[in-house]
């Protein structure tokens, strides 16, 4: 095909990938939902099999999910899931764990202290900073208005 001024825009439109937003949204819904169902199963197991109260089971579930996600990231599987699931693998707490483990692995070659340890919060640091900052504000506001 000849690339001239007239059909340039047409060629660009043909080559540019089609808007995959709908497909992305469906995959995000399925993956995100599935991860939450796994979380519910872990939570249920703690409550019904080990007799742990609901309030205590919730942080334990987070810890287990974080552990699973860290392991899958180490094996290189979580990133593969992420390519299919998109936001479905980013939004759950497993995505937060992935954002901690990924730079930790990536900077390993720069050493365990200045590489892994220094970069472990490279992506998750902003999340914690803004999270803690806004929770402090929420705490102050709850003292001021009650």
């Amino acid at each position: 095909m000849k690339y001239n001024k007239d059909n340039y825009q047409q060629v660009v439109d043909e080559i540019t990938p089609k808007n995959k937003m709908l497909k992305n949204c469906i995959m995000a819904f399925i993956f995100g939902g599935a991860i939450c169902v796994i979380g519910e199963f872990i939570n249920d197991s703690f409550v019904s099999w080990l007799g742990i109260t609901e309030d205590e089971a919730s942080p334990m579930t987070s810890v287990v999910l974080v552990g699973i996600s860290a392991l899958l990231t180490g094996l290189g599987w979580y990133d593969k899931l992420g390519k299919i699931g998109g936001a479905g693998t980013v939004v759950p707490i497993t995505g937060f764990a992935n954002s901690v483990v990924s730079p930790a692995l990536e900077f390993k070659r720069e050493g365990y202290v200045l590489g892994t340890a220094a970069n472990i919060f490279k992506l998750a640091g902003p999340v914690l900073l803004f999270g803690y900052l806004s929770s402090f504000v929420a705490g102050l506001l709850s003292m001021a208005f009650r």
Partner: protein
Amino acid sequence: MNYVMSFLIGGTICLIGQIVIDTFKKNNAYLLVALVVTGVILGYLGIYDKIVEIGHSGATVPLLGFGNSLAKGAMEEASSKGFMGALSGGIIKTAPGVAAALVFGYLVAVIFNPKGDK
């Protein structure tokens, strides 16, 4: 029934996240920050607890639930310990998840080697 609601609510929150990613095309870190701060705001307003009642793990597993825990922790501690509680409450409540991410993350980094892009 809890499983169905977890799937629907969790899926919906992730779907909203996907729309945000596709619309703004920013680094995922922006999405994570936005989710946590939104979770804190919804937690402060008491709205998120109602979503948790309906969606169970579908609401607590996404990062919005992390924000909700932060806000609830800060508010609970603030009411009993005042200023120092507001400062530490959120961190105390979410410490297990963060510490787990650090500990497991470091262990994984020691055990595994990075997988190169294929």
